[in-house]
């Protein structure tokens, strides 16, 4: 049963990702991206990571609507239907994608340290466990990410607004 559900959402996610790269219309690409995120969120739910799934929808699908706005505002062509022209350098794209694929496969195949659980994952309150980990073992990466995001935010504001030189 869960295998069927997995394949429904996995195929949805991959097909939507295919739509993202093949759509001629950049707004369609963005909307396909939202569909991909929903498919991935469903896979998270199947892995008992409900919190990550909800955050995936809250943050990423919400962000897609902002992306669509930017796509529409920044498209210089009059016709949105042709706003995402094909790139002729597909050879390079194939090379880079193949390289990444080989690297990931190599890591997966050579890594002997997989911590495979004995039985199915049964911890009910995975959110509490996650927040405990974030505020104890992974405190420093968590705070570093927060600082990085703040710096990026401040940088974006300064780039957009400019700084007064005479002060």
């Amino acid at each position, binding site marked *: 049963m869960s295998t069927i559900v997995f394949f429904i959402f996995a195929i949805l996610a991959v097909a939507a990702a295919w739509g993202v790269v093949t759509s001629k219309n950049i707004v369609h690409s963005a909307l396909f991206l939202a569909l991909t995120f929903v498919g991935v969120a469903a896979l998270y739910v199947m892995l008992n990571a409900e919190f990550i799934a909800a955050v995936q929808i809250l943050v990423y699908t919400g962000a897609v*609507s902002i992306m669509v706005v930017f796509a529409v505002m920044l498209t210089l062509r009059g016709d949105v239907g042709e706003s995402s022209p094909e790139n002729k350098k597909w050879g390079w794209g194939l090379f880079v994608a193949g390289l990444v694929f080989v690297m990931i496969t190599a890591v997966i195949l050579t890594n002997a340290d997989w911590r495979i659980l004995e039985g199915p994952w049964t911890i009910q*309150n995975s959110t509490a466990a996650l927040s405990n980990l974030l505020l104890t073992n992974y405190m420093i990466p968590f705070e570093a990410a927060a600082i990085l995001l703040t710096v990026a935010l401040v940088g974006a504001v300064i780039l957009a607004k400019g700084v007064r030189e005479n002060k």
Partner: protein
Amino acid sequence: MDALNQLPLNIAATIRSLFGDSHSIWADLTMNVINIILVIVLIVLAALILILLERKIAGWTSQRPGPNRLGPHGWFQTIADALKLLGKEDVTPAGADKFIFKIAPMILFALPMMTLAVIPYGKGMSPIDLDLGIVYFLAISAVSTLSLLMAGWSSNNKYSMLGGMRAVAQMISYEIPLIFSLLGVVMITQTFSLSKIVEAQSTVPFVVLQPLAFVIYLIAGIAEVNRAPFDLVEADQEVVAGPFTEYTGLRWGLFFLGEYGNMTAVAALTTTVFLGGWQGPAILPGYAWFFLKVGIIIFFQMWVRWTFPRIRIDHLMGLAWKVLLPLSILNILLTGLGIYIYDLVLRIGG
């Protein structure tokens, strides 16, 4: 009274007992289908009643009778309007992005179905009892912006596009205070589960402990459902109903259902988180208390809509970023201090 209170649960148990094994997958499946049908019926009924109520309240605030022709006091007006909508032609404008144009109202209608399915309507009466109720609710309702933008963009109409853009601009400003205002309650109860939050309010509803968060959530909630004074998305005089301009017939009706469903969902979450949900004196069954409180919140939203003028979009952003956001962060800080002091008092006292 107790029998009346347990009535829905007893009906559910009776339906389950029709199956050989009352917890088999078929029994669960049947109950889920019945639950989702009930949620859809709730949305449609809510829309039918609320549209009439809205017009009556609009009349009351501007001292005119409102709809008063069809049936006693005009109570059948909405039914007649709905029938009229069914008979209208379904027009897709030339140059519209047809698929997105058609799917956008369906998405907006599906969202309140998904959010209302996790609300506890009574003790043990959540259609689906999620551990992460609040997070799920917020995540699903954030998608409504995307459907408004899809409708606005695909209509191939400048006003609709502007309305869709406004929906996004509005969302990034109210979303953060909206989420932060709920965090105080989560900090006190240590859970995201809506049914556990209601059970934690058996002595005192959280509106007493979190008055600031309640006010912030009410304001941001009105912005979330795009109603006056924050109805910039569909402001008739500025962008001619925004994303809905090009829609006709039943598709427009779906938007209407979605809007009123969203409004019910926000009122239901306010009731659940701040007003104690189904908790109340035993003179009424729990679900009656729940719907009474939801009705009060909805009445308040309508009252505000017909009393205050629309505010400008930059004023809304200023309000959300410069007033509501600092206040909601202050609320989190005060709640943390309060919990700390409470623990300290308990430790000294005990």
